[in-house]
């Protein structure tokens, strides 16, 4: 016997144990139906491994452990599973829980089972698993899975193994009877536990109210080698509480919130030890247990070994229950057990006692009175708590404070309630408070969990949003890039097609013009007819004709206007054509250069460049051909009918459309990298060539026509009118140009529009001029110009003279133009050079004729000069300025890549035009100067030299003047000499100036 300790408090309720110890342990009958709950232990419910309808043998696993803290559930007897459903279970709440319901067949047929031959021979882990698989959980009341406790040796130093045989609660005698009858099994079970935990000391605590059990134990203990002490302690409730027992046996207090293993002690129930023995030595899983049936309502209260899942009714009937006096059915002891309402409730692994109490035995709890603060509860509390305080806190729902008063150390033994004079259900308050706190904690855990999930979701959404934004930006950037690339391509395309694009409504306009013409002709015919026959309504007809004329003219104008706007329209004058040719040549050269560069560097799309170059070549040739045709157009005298012209034009247009189509197809093919690109290119070139040939033909025809027309149909008066028109137009153009300049200078937004307007005016002017030019002295075939019929040397002034002069000027311009054209032709080794030369010679001779005629008619050439040299000079300088401006504009435009190509072209042509104008103006000035020089030369005076002499004379005069002033100031003697010199110099200068003034104005 070891030293005795004691714990605080405790009560001595009437034991009533003797009632159920009169009989030996009986075996309960096998009920018809076994209800096996899945959760008979603390921890996770087991998982069903059978299904309804299955036949199970006794000891067969029907539900497996799920999770760490869980055990297997076995079929207590053989039979068929009839249901797996919710059924009432022994629980304070009286609620239902999932159960496996087995309809027994009465055979009680065992599944094959065997114990371990030598449990010490196998690894401990295997032994523990064996115990776990045999469904063993604590038999004392809580039902904690035993295998978990057997693992405590792994991470704790277990000094003492305590076996709980106290059975302190009144009425219960299950352990007592077990020890009386099966002490050897218990001891052997203890040996298994000791083998696993290896404690230095084993203690069996037992109350002194079980002398027979103590004796049996002592007897059995002799057979073991364990360091085993059987400690008999005085009976006091609740000495069977784990912590109280440990305190009693070892004097060690398990700290609040810790487990006994933390102080090196492991506690097991003797019933558990017996179950371990059954499992390890016989292979019998935990399918039955000893349960005490007692209470005044039973005729034969006794202990019986009953199968788990046996309904209480069966047990009660076995014990001879008198249902009429049964007032209350309690599962567990009277202190800690709970009342159940149904007798269908099965017994489970933790059911150690069933009390069938009468009314007198267990009357209803008297109504609770207010706490009188007597303090008795505090005196009996085995956990040394302050039950009264806890009661107040629980009642006031001050759970936090209750927690601070160690509510969770309460073992709910009920001692405080037992002694309470006010009959306050104290334990229920504590249970309520504990449940509330637990629920709150669970809620808190759940809300924390929800918060984490919420925050994770928010973060995820944020991330998704950010990703989306990033992707969107990326896409936008990509799209912008693609757009830029596409734009570049489009621009290139537009540049390619711009030069050849046709006006869509040109045809319609043309048709309108033709219709108007036809109508006019009809009306004219009708008028003629009427006039001839002297019919009535002539006036009306005349009006109609006039109207129609106006209409026809309008239609023609409408048709002409877009035509002249077109860069390659045939009605453009030679100059324009020439410009085109020059531009085309330049472009061709550029393209060639680009190609060469690309070939050198091996970069870029060679094929595309080449095709561009080819297209450019064709274009250049076409432009040159058009120009040549136009230049030599004067020689073609026969007019081609308008209808044919139209046909030709339509042909050309359709060919052009074809070319365009083919080209776009080719581009698409090139882009897609098809191997057919080369073939297609050849096709396109062919088409292009065809088109240019057609166009050239058409242009030729048109040029010839216009020439013929102008030849045949224009009278001098009309020519005059034309001239006036041209002049008026020119004035307009100049005005518009000035306005445009001003607009450009002021950065007006209307510049573009104005430019277009100016351009239009210019083209009109050009058209008029060309018309006029072609109408006036047609170069070769016309023998003598029309407006030269004035008799030689008759008049010194007047219209004729002026006319002559302007004719002469025009001729001069023509000559110079022709010369230039000749030069270009020579440079380009055109085959038309010979012809052109002849033309130029002719023109020159004609000009000479005109000049002599004019001289004859008007005497001096210089005198009637309309344009004074100053104005000419001014013109030249203005032109120069304009040219410079345009060039700088062009330069900036070229460096600014954002400008579309066609605008650049417009600028280029503008610069070209200005260059030409400047050139012309300069030429005029030069011509004027030349006339003067020629005149001077005719008198044997070198004008240039004269000018220099004049300057020298002026300088000499200045010098002399200065010397004279100086002499006057110094009053020197040779003042008179100096003055004389000055006078001489002055005279000389005067003379030279006089001569000079003769040749200038």
């Amino acid at each position, binding site marked *: 016997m070891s030293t005795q300790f004691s714990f605080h408090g405790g009560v001595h309720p009437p034991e009533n144990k003797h009632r159920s110890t009169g009989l030996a342990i009986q075996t309960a009958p096998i009920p018809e139906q076994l209800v096996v709950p899945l*959760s008979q232990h603390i921890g996770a419910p087991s998982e069903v491994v059978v299904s309804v309808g299955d036949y199970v043998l006794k000891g067969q696993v029907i539900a497996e452990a799920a999770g760490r803290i869980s055990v297997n559930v076995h079929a207590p007897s053989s039979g068929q599973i009839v249901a797996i459903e919710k059924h009432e279970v022994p629980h304070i709440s009286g609620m239902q829980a999932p159960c496996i319901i087995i309809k027994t067949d009465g055979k009680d047929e065992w599944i094959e089972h065997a114990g371990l031959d030598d449990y010490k021979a196998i690894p401990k882990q295997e032994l523990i698993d064996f115990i776990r698989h045999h469904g063993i959980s604590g038999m004392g009341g809580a039902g904690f899975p035993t295998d978990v406790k057997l693992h405590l040796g792994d991470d704790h130093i277990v000094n003492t193994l305590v076996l709980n045989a106290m059975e302190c609660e009144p009425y219960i005698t299950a352990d007592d009877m077990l020890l009386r009858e099966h002490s050897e099994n218990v001891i052997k079970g203890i040996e298994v536990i000791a083998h696993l935990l290896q404690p230095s000391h084993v203690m069996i605590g037992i109350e002194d109210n079980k002398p027979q059990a103590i004796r049996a134990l002592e007897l059995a203990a002799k057979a073991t080698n364990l360091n085993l002490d059987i400690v008999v302690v005085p009976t006091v409730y609740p000495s069977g509480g784990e912590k109280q027992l440990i305190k009693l046996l070892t004097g060690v207090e398990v700290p609040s919130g810790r487990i006994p293993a933390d102080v090196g002690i492991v506690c097991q129930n003797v019933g558990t030890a017996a179950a371990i023995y059954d499992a390890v030595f016989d292979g019998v899983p935990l399918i039955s247990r000893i349960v005490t049936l007692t209470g005044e309502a039973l005729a034969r209260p006794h202990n019986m070994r009953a199968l788990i899942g046996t309904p209480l009714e069966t047990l009660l009937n076995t014990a001879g229950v008198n249902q009429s006096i049964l007032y209350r059915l309690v599962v567990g002891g009277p202190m800690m057990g709970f009342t159940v309402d149904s007798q269908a409730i099965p017994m489970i692994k933790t059911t150690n006692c069933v009390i069938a109490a009468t009314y007198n035995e267990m009357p209803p709890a008297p*109504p609770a009175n207010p706490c009188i603060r007597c303090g008795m509860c505090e005196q009996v509390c085995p956990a040394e708590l302050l039950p009264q305080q806890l009661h107040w806190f629980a*009642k006031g729902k001050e759970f936090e404070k209750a927690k601070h008063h160690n509510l969770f150390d309460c073992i709910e033994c009920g001692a405080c309630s037992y002694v309470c004079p006010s009959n306050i259900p104290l334990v229920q308050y504590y249970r309520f408070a504990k*449940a509330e706190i637990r629920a709150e904690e669970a809620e808190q855990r759940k809300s924390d969990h*929800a918060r984490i999930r919420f925050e994770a*979701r928010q973060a995820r959404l944020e991330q998704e949003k950010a990703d989306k934004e990033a992707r969107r930006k990326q896409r936008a950037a990509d799209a912008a890039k693609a757009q830029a690339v596409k734009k570049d391509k489009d621009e290139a395309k537009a540049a390619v097609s711009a030069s050849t694009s046709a006006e869509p409504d040109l045809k319609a306009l043309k048709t309108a013009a033709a219709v108007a013409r036809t109508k006019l002709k009809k009306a004219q015919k009708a008028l003629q007819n009427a006039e001839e026959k002297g019919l009535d309504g002539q006036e009306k007809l005349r009006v109609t004709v006039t109207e129609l004329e106006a209409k026809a003219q309008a239609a023609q104008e409408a048709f002409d206007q877009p035509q002249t706007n077109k860069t390659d329209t045939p009605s453009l004058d030679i100059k324009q054509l020439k410009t085109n040719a020059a531009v085309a040549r330049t472009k061709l050269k550029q393209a060639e250069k680009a190609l060469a560069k690309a070939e050198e560097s091996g970069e870029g799309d060679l094929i595309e460049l080449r095709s561009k170059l080819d297209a450019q070549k064709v274009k250049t040739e076409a432009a040159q051909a058009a120009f040549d045709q136009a230049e030599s157009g004067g020689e073609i005298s026969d007019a081609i009918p308008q209808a044919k012209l139209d046909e030709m034009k339509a042909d050309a247009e359709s060919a052009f459309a074809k070319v365009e189509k083919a080209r776009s197809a080719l581009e698409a093919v090139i882009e897609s990298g098809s191997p057919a690109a080369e073939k297609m290119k050849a096709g396109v070139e062919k088409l292009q060539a065809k088109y240019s040939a057609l166009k050239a033909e058409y242009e030729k025809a048109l040029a010839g026509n216009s020439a013929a027309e102008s030849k045949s149909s224009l009278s001098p008066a009309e020519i005059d009118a034309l001239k006036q028109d041209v002049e008026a137009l020119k004035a307009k153009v100049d005005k518009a140009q000035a306005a445009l300049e001003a607009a450009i200078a002021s950065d007006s937004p209307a510049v573009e529009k104005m430019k277009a307007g100016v351009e239009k005016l210019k083209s009109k002017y050009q058209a008029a001029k060309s018309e006029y030019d072609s109408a006036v002295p047609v170069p070769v075939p016309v023998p003598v110009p029309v407006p030269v019929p004035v008799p030689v040397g008759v008049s010194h002034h007047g219209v004729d003279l002026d006319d002559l002069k302007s004719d002469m000027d025009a001729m001069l311009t023509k000559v110079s133009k022709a010369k230039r054209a000749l030069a270009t032709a020579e440079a380009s080794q055109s085959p038309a050079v010979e012809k052109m030369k002849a033309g130029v010679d002719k023109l020159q001779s004609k000009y000479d004729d005109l000049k002599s005629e004019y001289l004859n008619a008007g005497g001096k050439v210089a005198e009637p000069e309309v344009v004074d040299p100053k104005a000419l000079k001014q013109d030249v300088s203005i032109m120069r300025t304009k040219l410079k401006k345009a060039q700088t504009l062009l330069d900036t435009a070229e460096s600014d890549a954002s400008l579309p190509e066609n605008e650049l072209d417009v600028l280029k042509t503008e610069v070209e035009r200005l260059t030409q104008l400047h050139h012309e103006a300069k030429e005029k000035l030069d011509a004027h100067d030349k006339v003067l020089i020629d005149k001077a030369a005719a008198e044997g005076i070198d004008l240039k030299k004269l000018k220099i002499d004049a300057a020298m004379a002026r300088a000499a005069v200045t010098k002399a003047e200065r010397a004279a002033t100086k002499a006057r100031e110094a009053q020197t003697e040779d003042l008179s000499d100096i003055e004389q010199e000055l006078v001489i110099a002055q005279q000389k200068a005067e003379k030279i100036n006089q001569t000079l003034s003769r040749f200038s104005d």
Partner: protein
Amino acid sequence: MEFVLIAILALLGLALVFGLLLGFASVRFRVEGNPLVDQIDGMLPQTQCGQCGYPGCRPYAEAISEGDAINKCPPGGQSTVEALADLLDVDVLPLEGGAEEEPVKTVAYIREDECIGCTKCIQACPVDAILGAAKQMHTVIESECTGCDLCVEPCPVDCIDMLPIETTLNTWKWDMPKPGVQLIVTDRRGELVEGEVAQ
């Protein structure tokens, strides 16, 4: 004069020392964020239901810390209001809108054969407790559901029910014991009940 100077210098020195000390402490022991918001947030039920008018519990916690009313959380019930009142040392207010004191905890349940798989409830769920894909049946992960009701509204076929959480053996709670009989008549509130006296 000299004493006065010494006193002033001494006080200045002390002020300097303590100022430095405080400055150092304010840098060294700086607390990130508002700890009060965290505390309030910890008391809120985290259903993220938005019934308070804020997009989630934390925004409401922030609003409370800036002086908003503490009684806007129906899922939290009166107990939350009391806890908040205790924490912030303000008066306990009855729940806004006269909501029941202790709300019944619910979870969403999707009648799965009626679900058309529109994913709208998935997008609405603040805690990702609904599982499913487009054109596939959805289901609620019960253990993750906070019972916020937010998924009910967007469901186009009204196949979501908010069911009260079933009490199991694990979630069963002891009730508060019935209050005992008062000893003297004047202790009674309200009317005297004969039956109680007899008992």
